C-alpha cells in the first residue's frame, strides 16, 4: 500500500515539474478509496494529494493497479493497462463530474521483485464531501464505486 502511494507521489512529481518544488519533496496523501477491488485482477485507489506541492494546487488521483508479474517472468496479462481502453469519471454529488487533468501509465517494480501495472488519472481538487463516486470503464465494461464523505482527519 505504501509503495503504491509512494509511486503516486513520485509520478506526480514527474508530471508536474515545478521549479519551486525541491527535488524529492513528498506530497501528503489522503485516501478516499483504499485499494478497492474493481474486477478480479484490478484494484482502484482514490487519493487526495495536497500540501508540499509547491505552487501546484491539490488534486485528486484515481489509480488503477494490478500485480503484473515478477521481474523476468512473462506477464499473465495479454496487454498492460496502458494498452487497454480506460476511462475514469469522478462524480460529484450535484450531478456533475470533476474535470480531468492528465493520466499516466507505468509498469514498475514494487516489492519482492513483483512488478505493478498502474494507470493514474489526475483530477482537479474538490471538497471530498462533494465526491459521490468513481466510475471506471475498461475496454467498454463499466464499474462504479461509492465514495463516502468521511470527515477529514
Amino acid at each position, binding site marked *: 500500500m505504501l509503495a503504491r502511494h509512494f509511486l503516486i507521489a513520485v509520478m506526480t512529481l514527474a508530471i508536474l515539474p515545478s521549479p519551486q518544488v525541491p527535488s524529492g519533496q513528498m506530497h501528503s496523501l489522503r485516501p478516499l478509496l483504499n485499494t478497492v477491488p474493481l474486477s478480479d485482477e484490478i484494484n482502484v485507489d482514490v487519493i487526495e494529494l495536497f500540501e508540499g506541492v509547491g505552487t501546484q494546487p491539490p488534486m485528486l488521483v484515481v489509480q488503477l493497479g494490478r500485480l503484473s508479474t515478477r521481474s523476468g517472468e512473462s506477464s499473465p496479462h495479454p496487454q498492460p493497462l496502458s494498452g487497454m481502453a480506460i476511462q475514469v469519471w469522478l*462524480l460529484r454529488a450535484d*450531478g456533475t463530474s470533476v474535470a480531468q487533468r492528465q493520466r499516466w501509465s507505468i509498469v514498475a517494480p514494487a516489492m519482492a521483485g513483483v512488478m505493478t501495472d498502474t494507470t493514474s488519472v489526475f483530477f482537479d481538487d474538490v471538497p471530498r464531501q462533494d465526491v459521490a463516486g468513481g466510475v471506471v470503464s475498461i475496454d*467498454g465494461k463499466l464499474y462504479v464505486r461509492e465514495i463516502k464523505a468521511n470527515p477529514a482527519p
Partner: protein
Amino acid sequence: MIARYLTVGLLTLGILPDPSAQRAQAHPSQTLLAPAPLSDEITALSVTEYSGMGGPPGVQVALQGPQVHDGARNPLSVRTTQVWLVRKDGTTVGDLSHPMETIDNASVRDFGVVTYGLLFSFQPVPPQDLAGVVVSVNGKMYVREIKVNPAS
C-alpha cells in the same frame, strides 16, 4: 354509442399521467437503454433520446419504482436519487431541468395501486458519445452501459 364514448373517456382518464408528468412528455426518437430492472427500489431504468415538443431536444432517464397502494408516498425521492450520464471523453452531460416526479395511475381503478417514478432530463448529446448511465439511490450506486449502434 354513448356507452362506447363513455368507455373511451374513462380509459383515457385512467391512462393519462398527472399534469406534472405530462409536462415532461416528449417525442422519443431513439431508445438508448431499454427498460430493465436496476434494484429492488428501481424496477425499471430507461434512457431515451427525444426530439422535444416545441422545446429543445435532449435525453431523458426514467426511473420507475415498485407499485404501491394508491395514497402511499413516492418511494423514490429527488433528494436521495441522483443520475449521471457519462460521456466517453471522461465528462458528464449537463442536466436540462430539475428532476420531476412521475406517477402512472393506470392500475389504480382496477387494482388500487400506482407506480411512481422520477424523470431526469439532460442536454442533447450524440448517442454514440455516451458511455453509460450512473444512478445513485440512497447512497448506493449502479451503472449501466449504453451501447448505440452507430448506424442507428
